[in-house]
């Protein structure tokens, strides 16, 4: 940074002056940024011509918020943060203190809490009322957790930047949708099949990009994702294009109980419960929970196997890796195909859950969201990724619930509209605030005497 920070104790007066000045500049800059886009609005009149509507009040609010915000940051927040940092350095950290019970058993507690979650939701909100909580929050977040854990194998462990992960998600979803409609296979047959097909596509992507590195790899994977989506849109004889495939059959509990309303072995009928779609959602919740935990388990086990160690070696240094005799071709291909396989599982789950797939669901934005969850979570830390998914996806879902905002901003205020705007801003803010992600420390799998978490800045990209 070019500007020198002044010491707050010695120069209290000049700090305020500086803050005032910077606040003023921020106001000017934000005026320039927003004058066209906020101050004026283009709307169509009755003759369908564009006309301008003026919104100077709103512009003033934007400018004032920027100026005051900058002033407060410079005058109060920054000195406070600096003082806290100094205090943290001065404080001697007690390394010998054992972790609390909660911290030691965090994983077990989290899993138990997740298993109890739908039951609690049913108890608190009633069978019908739990629907929203289990579906919008539980299942939605867990899908992203699973996808991010799958992508983590490629990006976090093997260090291959993949911007087209959603392609495998699409392959999984369409293979379930098409095969179940044309051949009538059940979910439990098609789930592994979707995974295998996605893994196969992962290999197909992997072969041409073996020689590519870094950003070249990123753009080719992005292109691959776009190609898959464009083919899905344009190959209308098979995929029905943008209309998508609807009425995809539901999954059943291993064929024992079904969730089709008319079936004799309907879950609610067998147990004599009132008919509700909530049971199916709860079943789907446990299904995705099991799939996500499978992903995590496989990742943890693979990290201790030769192939996992090879991935991490590849991430840290490809040349050293090659000179040690590791076959980088198979290492890269296994990373791509195993990562893709979990994407395929998640895809077929997505098809089952929605009952409808269309290319709309597999845009680049989805890849970006999944990648950002992986990076925000700390690249390789499974817990961190889960936390990031819960914060980012759950946070934006929560926005739908904020009806009280209507009382503040007036009745035409729709919080949904601002969902992606806030998501984008949150990505920026979290990344600037914590560049190493939510969980910045790393737990090595290979260690000499005792396992010690090291700071993330010691590793090149991810976990290890």
């Amino acid at each position, binding site marked *: *940074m*070019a500007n020198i920070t002044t010491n707050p104790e010695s120069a209290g007066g000049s700090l305020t002056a500086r803050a005032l000045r910077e606040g003023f500049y921020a106001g000017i*800059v934000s005026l*320039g*940024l927003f004058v*066209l*886009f906020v101050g*004026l*609005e*283009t709307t*169509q009149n009755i003759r*369908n011509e*564009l006309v*301008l509507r003026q919104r100077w009040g709103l512009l003033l609010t934007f400018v004032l918020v920027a100026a005051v915000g900058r002033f407060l940051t410079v005058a109060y927040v920054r000195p406070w943060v600096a003082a806290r940092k100094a205090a943290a350095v001065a404080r001697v950290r007690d390394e010998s203190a054992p972790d609390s019970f909660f911290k030691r058993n965090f994983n077990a507690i989290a899993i138990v809490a997740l298993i109890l979650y739908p039951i609690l939701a049913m108890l608190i909100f009633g069978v019908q009322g739990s629907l929203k909580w289990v579906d919008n929050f539980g299942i939605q977040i867990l899908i992203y957790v699973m996808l991010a854990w799958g992508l983590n194998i490629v*990006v976090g462990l093997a260090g291959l*930047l993949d911007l087209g992960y959603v392609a495998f998600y699409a392959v999984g979803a369409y293979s379930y949708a098409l095969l179940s409609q044309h051949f009538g296979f059940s979910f439990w047959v098609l789930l592994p099949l979707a995974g295998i097909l996605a893994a196969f596509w992962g290999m197909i992507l992997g072969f*041409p*990009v073996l020689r*590519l*590195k*870094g*950003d*070249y790899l*990123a*753009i*080719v994977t*992005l*292109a*691959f994702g*776009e*190609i898959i989506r*464009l*083919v899905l*849109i*344009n190959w209308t004889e098979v995929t029905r294009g943008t209309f998508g495939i609807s009425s995809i059959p539901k999954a059943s509990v291993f064929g024992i109980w079904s969730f089709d309303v008319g079936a004799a072995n309907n879950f609610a009928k067998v147990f004599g419960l009132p008919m509700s779609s909530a049971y199916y959602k709860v079943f789907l919740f446990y299904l995705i929970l099991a799939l996500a935990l499978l992903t995590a388990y496989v990742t943890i086990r693979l990290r201790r196997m030769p192939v996992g160690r090879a991935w991490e070696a590849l991430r840290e240094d490809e*040349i*050293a890796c090659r000179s040690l005799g590791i076959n980088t071709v198979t290492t890269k291909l296994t990373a791509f195909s195993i990562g893709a396989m979990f994407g395929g599982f998640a895809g077929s789950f997505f098809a089952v859950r929605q009952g409808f797939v269309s290319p709309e669901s597999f845009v*680049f*934005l989805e890849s*970006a969201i999944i*990648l*950002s969850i992986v*990076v925000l979570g700390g*690249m390789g830390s499974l817990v961190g990724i889960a936390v990031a998914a819960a914060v980012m996806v759950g946070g934006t879902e929560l926005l739908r619930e904020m009806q009280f905002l209507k009382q503040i901003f007036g009745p035409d205020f729709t919080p949904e*509209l*601002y969902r*992606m*705007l806030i*998501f*984008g*801003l*949150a*990505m*920026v803010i979290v*990344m*600037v605030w914590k*560049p*190493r992600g939510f969980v910045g420390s790393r737990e090595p799998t290979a260690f000499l005497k005792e396992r010690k978490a090291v700071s993330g800045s010691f590793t*090149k*990209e991810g976990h290890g």
Partner: protein
Amino acid sequence: MEYFIQQLVNGLTLGSIYGLIAIGYTMVYGIIGMINFAHGDIFMLGGFAALIIFLVITSIFVGLPVVILLLIMMAAAMLTAALWNWTIEKVAYRPLRGSFRLAPLITAIGMSITLSNFIQVTQGPRNKPIPPLVSSVYNVFGISIALKQIIIVLLTVILLTVFWYIVNKTSLGRAQRATEQDRKMAALLGIDVDRTISITFIMGAGLAAVAGTMYLMYYGVAVFSDGFIPGVKAFTAAVLGGIGSLPGAVIGGLLIGLIESLWSAYFTIDYKDVATFSILAIVLIFKPSGILGRPEVEKV
């Protein structure tokens, strides 16, 4: 034959626009080694600024000459886009400069999402059509060339010359090239690295804004989601030409434009983007650092 040349002209126009955007990608990549994913949205923002200024001007002065109108639109778009890109660099990329490679990429993607949604929220999600600005069409040996196509190609050539001059002949350009080669060494030699990087972002945004204005003039419509597809294609162009190389970006842009228009003319229009991306993949497999890119030598 005439049909072929006609498609060539169309491809050249489209390619010029892609080339202008691609320069911004390639300059930023060259100087700080990051993919500025928000660049496509800066292009869209420039188009919107031009659109709004167009509405303001036409509601105040009626019957202004088109040349002056276009110049004012372009100037306003350049100013606004430059200010945005400068702010974004300062807020979202500079704090992460010493961080690991993926961090600025994520903030760039975040900024891209933010910008397109910001425009969607403030300006509405619908297409914004404007009346045609330049509509005369010339007929040369049976090939119809629109005036707007000539303007686009001519403007691209002029801007490229200016930029080539700045980068190769001025002290600012020397500072940029020095920063690109070795940032720490450049700083030791007295180059204000932060300022150089800021100026690079401003220059890139200016070109993107010109491209945005041209796009608006060519198609006569602006929409908030316009940033993504041209942005990705321009980035593809930059990579195809060899990222970090200025002439490479233009060559890549022209190639992408030509591939697109020729493919749509002779094969199906549905798969034109598939063709573009496939050719990118094929070129990179055989020439992993692009057409004009320097092969990366890895020192151990």
